[in-house]
């Protein structure tokens, strides 16, 4: 199986992220694991906040997710997090619901990207 991962429209600008943290691939892998775990916790909190119409929490979680996404050069996740932050600020529940769906889709895309990358690395090592 020959898998090639294109940088174009990928959920993470991998080279930029790697450069930002000083080139340590192992550390970046660790950070991505932390991010995915953190995201799933925040996702639950956002879902709950939408249900309870807790706009302060929507704003806060959006803001925090935005920071984490930006640190790891994930432009779309960053943008969507900002959208969620604004939804909380504007008390716009409809915007929050739409954004949550988009965030989830992008999260899935990111997880797949990371998984594929890991598979590719293992294949390269075997050769």
């Amino acid at each position, binding site marked *: 199986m020959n898998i090639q991962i294109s940088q174009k429209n990928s959920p993470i600008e991998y080279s930029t992220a790697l450069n*930002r943290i*000083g080139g340590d691939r192992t550390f970046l892998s660790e950070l991505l694991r932390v991010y995915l775990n953190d995201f799933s916790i925040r996702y639950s909190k956002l879902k709950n906040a939408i249900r309870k119409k807790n706009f302060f929490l929507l704003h806060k979680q959006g803001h925090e997710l935005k920071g984490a996404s*930006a640190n790891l050069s994930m432009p779309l996740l960053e943008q969507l997090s900002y959208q969620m932050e604004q939804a909380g600020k504007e008390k716009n529940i409809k915007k929050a619901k739409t954004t949550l769906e988009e965030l989830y889709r992008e999260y899935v895309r990111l997880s797949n990207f990371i998984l594929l990358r890991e598979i590719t690395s293992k294949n390269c090592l075997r050769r």
Partner: protein
Amino acid sequence: MIRLLIADDDPISMKILEKHTREWGFEVYTVNDGKKALKIFKKKNIQIALLDWMMPHLSGIDLCKHIRKQIGEEYTYIVLLTSRRDQDDVIEGLTAGADDYITKPFNRHELKVRLKTGSRIINLQLQLLESKRKIQEIAIHDSLTTLLNRAEIIRILSEEFEQAQREKKPLGIIMLDIDHFKKINDTFGHPFGDLVLNKVALRLKENVRIYDKIGRYGGEEFLAVLPNCSLDKAAQIAERLRLTICKRKIKIDTKLLSISISLGCTSTENLNMNSPEKLLSTSDYALYEAKKKGRNRVVII
């Protein structure tokens, strides 16, 4: 090592910052909320603080204001971490007392140089504090003998007198001077006389208790302030000082000199010692009596 605090509730930011700052040689402390940050700041004497804007319990801005309210000698250099779109908040942050800010996602090299700037300021401040301490030391010490100077020993006497009154404990005092010092100066010259003063001062310093204070009161006069000291004990100490000077000759260059001192001693155990001035005048009179009775002796009043 400069002590650096990272306060950020975003685990990604925290991990990245911690890794970089440890690599750059800082002593790093990390917390994920503002209240914990304030506790660590007080406990660990933090020199540089990297504070996230939004945190649980206490925001970066409010934490900044708290830190600035603490009036201590040592400065804390504060850098606020803010996201790209919130630059308007920067003005609020700098007004609250932050020294600098860094936008997320931060550039590693930019962060390094900004922290270098902070380190430079902290080191400058430490140098300034050290200079201040040295100046204060010089201001209270006699440059020739390195004992406390007259102003300082009198100030200490006043302070110890009040404490003795409060705690109802006795305070002893010994006034002493070098016998025939003028003759030494006239015979060998003033520079030689200075060396004699130095040697005598050193012996006196080595023979009082660790919490006693001794200062140069006049040209060849010294004053010892003895906290928690009865008249009997003060007399014992005075006699010890006398013997330490007269029993062993003083060697300067190739000359061996026999030196003696006369001492006047009193304590607040004595009635009517109702002020430091009274203690001084009584011990001075006792010293005068010691001189009159033939020198090289202790007189107790």
